[in-house]
């Protein structure tokens, strides 16, 4: 039986796990590192290019972000860009596209105009694009018909840019992070694949024993679990995070055969619908195609397109009166009820395309049912966290740090964008706990502006 001891052991080889693996290897004097991945390769679930829209969420066109949140995400998003530039990954796994937030109708136009004024100091490269400019930049969103002879009836405006890096293949970036980590240090940096962690136990000497399904066991002075929804599953097994439950939201995409958009087009988000606003993106995995989505479907399992995990879902939901209250508060709002029901119908064959295209026409009015196909195999699961104490659905990421040498992270969107920022936070906690050194000056020089 394998039994190895490490300074730090990371559970989960997605973008968050590999980012931490890289930072510890490159910028600390950690003596040994281990990464355990459940599947046969890194980033096969939510970090994979097919599972998300591969966007660097900097906060400039994400209309639901506050200025405060955008200031934070800007810093962490720039880390992704700096990492890729440092290793010459631009135009290989990181790309520049045009991107914009589109306001449709008087109310949204008013909002975009004001938001532009509010955000332009933080993002000086942003421009405000009126209909005339959009006719040139993204004509399909301006016209009502395919022949582009008739303007859509509603007023529109967009704020956007075409000078910035916008898109990353986070799956490929995970591989690069792991590769660079192993090159950066001479100490052991082991990665074990096909290794599913079933339990983590804190021993009397304060170290942790990590038990795996194949019978292997590892010990470590510090453990970080970056395993998506399974982070909460493992936390609950250790008695942590009992005030949280997990609601897995699956997202699907629809693909066009032809080129429809020149860049990313995001829509103004309704704050009542925290999961995702529909957007259109040129796909970097399927060249020449445009991807529309994601949809938002509550799914009773923790991993999309993988067997099982239904039971794990039930355990992680942590069902009780508080969860009922959260669902009640959500579903008593007709906007949310209709949204959830409609997104369920987006998955039902025969009617799904017809319904989906009605929503996507807000971006491209001339889009028809014949233009799109359901993107089979695309889409992942976002582990949305339910806070039972506050009785509300938490937006974005969540972290459980009992400050005893173990951290559990749940990182739904914008988790991939903030992977290096979250890893920075965890690195600080690890070096403090283990008494290690962190070359923060070099870290900041390499990865921040």
């Amino acid at each position, binding site marked *: 039986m394998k039994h190895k001891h490490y300074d730090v052991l990371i559970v989960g080889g997605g973008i968050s796990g590999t980012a931490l693996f890289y930072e510890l290897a490159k910028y600390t004097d950690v003596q040994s590192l281990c990464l355990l991945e459940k599947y046969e390769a890194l980033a096969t679930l939510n970090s994979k290019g097919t599972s998300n829209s591969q966007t660097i969420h900097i906060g400039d066109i994400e*209309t*639901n972000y*506050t200025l*405060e949140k955008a200031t934070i995400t800007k810093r962490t998003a720039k880390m992704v860009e700096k990492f890729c530039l440092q290793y010459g990954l631009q135009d290989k796994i990181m790309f520049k596209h045009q991107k914009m937030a589109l306001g449709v109708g*008087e109310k949204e136009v008013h*909002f975009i105009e004001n938001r532009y004024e509010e955000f332009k100091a933080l993002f000086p490269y942003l421009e405000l694009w009126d209909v005339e400019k959009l006719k040139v930049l993204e004509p399909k969103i301006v016209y009502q018909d395919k022949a582009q002879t008739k303007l859509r009836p509603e007023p529109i405006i967009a704020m956007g840019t075409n000078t910035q890096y916008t898109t990353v293949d986070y799956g490929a970036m995970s591989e690069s992070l792991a590769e660079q980590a192993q090159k950066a240090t001479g100490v052991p940096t082991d990665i074990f694949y096909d290794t599913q962690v079933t339990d983590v136990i804190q021993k009397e000497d304060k170290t942790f024993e990590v038990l795996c399904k194949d019978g292997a066991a590892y010990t470590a002075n510090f453990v970080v679990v970056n395993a998506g929804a399974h982070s909460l599953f493992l936390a609950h097994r250790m008695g942590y995070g009992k005030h949280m439950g997990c609601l897995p939201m699956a997202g699907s995409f629809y693909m066009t055969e032809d080129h429809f958009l020149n860049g990313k087009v995001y829509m103004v988000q309704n*704050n009542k619908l925290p999961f995702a606003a529909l957007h259109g993106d040129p796909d970097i995995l399927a060249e020449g195609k445009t991807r529309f989505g994601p949809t938002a479907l509550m799914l009773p399992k923790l991993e999309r397109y993988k067997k099982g995990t239904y039971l794990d879902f039930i355990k992680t939901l942590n069902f009780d009166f508080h969860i009922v209250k959260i669902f009640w508060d959500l579903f008593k709002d007709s906007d949310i009820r209709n949204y959830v029901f409609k997104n369920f119908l987006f998955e039902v064959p025969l009617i799904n395309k017809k319904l989906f295209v009605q929503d996507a026409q807000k971006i491209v009015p001339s889009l028809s049912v014949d233009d799109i196909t359901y993107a089979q195999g695309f889409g992942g699961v976002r582990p949305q966290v339910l806070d039972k104490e506050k009785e509300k659905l938490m937006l974005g990421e969540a972290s459980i740090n009992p400050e005893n040498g173990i951290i559990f992270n749940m990182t739904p969107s914008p988790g991939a964008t903030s992977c290096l920022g979250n890893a920075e936070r965890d690195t600080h906690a690890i070096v403090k706990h283990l008494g290690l050194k962190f070359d923060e000056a070099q870290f900041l020089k390499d990865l921040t502006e």
Partner: protein
Amino acid sequence: MKKLLYITDQDEYVDNSFIAPLFEVYLKKYMTIDIVYFTEFKSDFERKDAHRFTVPSRYKNSLLQELKRNDIEMHNYDFVMVRNNIKILEHILKYREKYHYKALYRFSFPKRRVKMSCDKADNKHTILSSMMNHFKLKSDVKTINRCDALLPTSKRMHEVFLPKVTIPDIVCSPSINPQILHENKQHTGEEKRFIYSGTLDKVREFETVLEAFSKVISDQWKLFISTRDVEYTYEMLDNYPNIREHIEVYNAKTKDALLDLIAKADIGVALLPDIPIYTSATPVKIFDYYSSAVPCLMTDSGHVTTLFTDSTDAWFSDFTQEDITAKIEYLLTLSKKEVMHVGAKGQKRLLDVKNYETLAKTIADKLEVL
């Protein structure tokens, strides 16, 4: 210094002539004012600065819990004022005993009555909707009567639309902002330039005004219209091809842009039907016009005649095509100097009797003795 929380149903980017000067400037001399705005788009609570908070609209019915989650202590407030939204008011009243604040209801405009009038104009009004409105009004009145004070836009608005509200009222009317007076930019054109700013819909019957202009013999005039209802306006103008070349349509996005446009005009137009929803309080557009010393042609209703004097600091007209046409013909005969003189007098009149500085003091004094 006492502390007031103002919860407005307006969105975070509202560019309204009322809230900014009164609550963000003048009332602050007498009390600390915090303002809650709602956003339909952002997902998280946001502090715009120490005194302005933006709350996602999904928390409207659990506002105090959301404020508490964000470290805003309701015990610190002496007054909580809710603008127009009865549901939020009910929520505020529910916690009044717990936090010991005085609950105030700001009634800025009879929105439901306007909606009913619009429905009538569109033939959507039914006996059922009328009954529903009756019961809703009754229930609203009951809720408002639980407050410590009502802040209507005018006394008359209280009397006409909420006659059964018996709590004390503190009039909170739109006024002129002495700090922001735009200079009237004199143009060199021969024509007289009229301006109308604001909403256009069926209830406002702007067709009567256009009909009046179309009957004017002289062609020495122009009409600027600044409205958010641009499409409606264009459709309406299609019915008046003979005067179309005299009319320019704008959609001034900000208060500054609107005041700039007004300053380029000679005479403001505040001609609205002589019905209580428009005549029970002075329309905000009148203050906008006089901020740039642009005199105003307005409907001759009881309310404005207590404020202005015909042909001295404003011009009155009945809301009929004939009377409006006659008044326009008369205005076209006036010299630029005569027009300017009326504008300057009207501005002075408002600065004397209806400015935010004195309004703020009155409100603060009345709140003090509540």
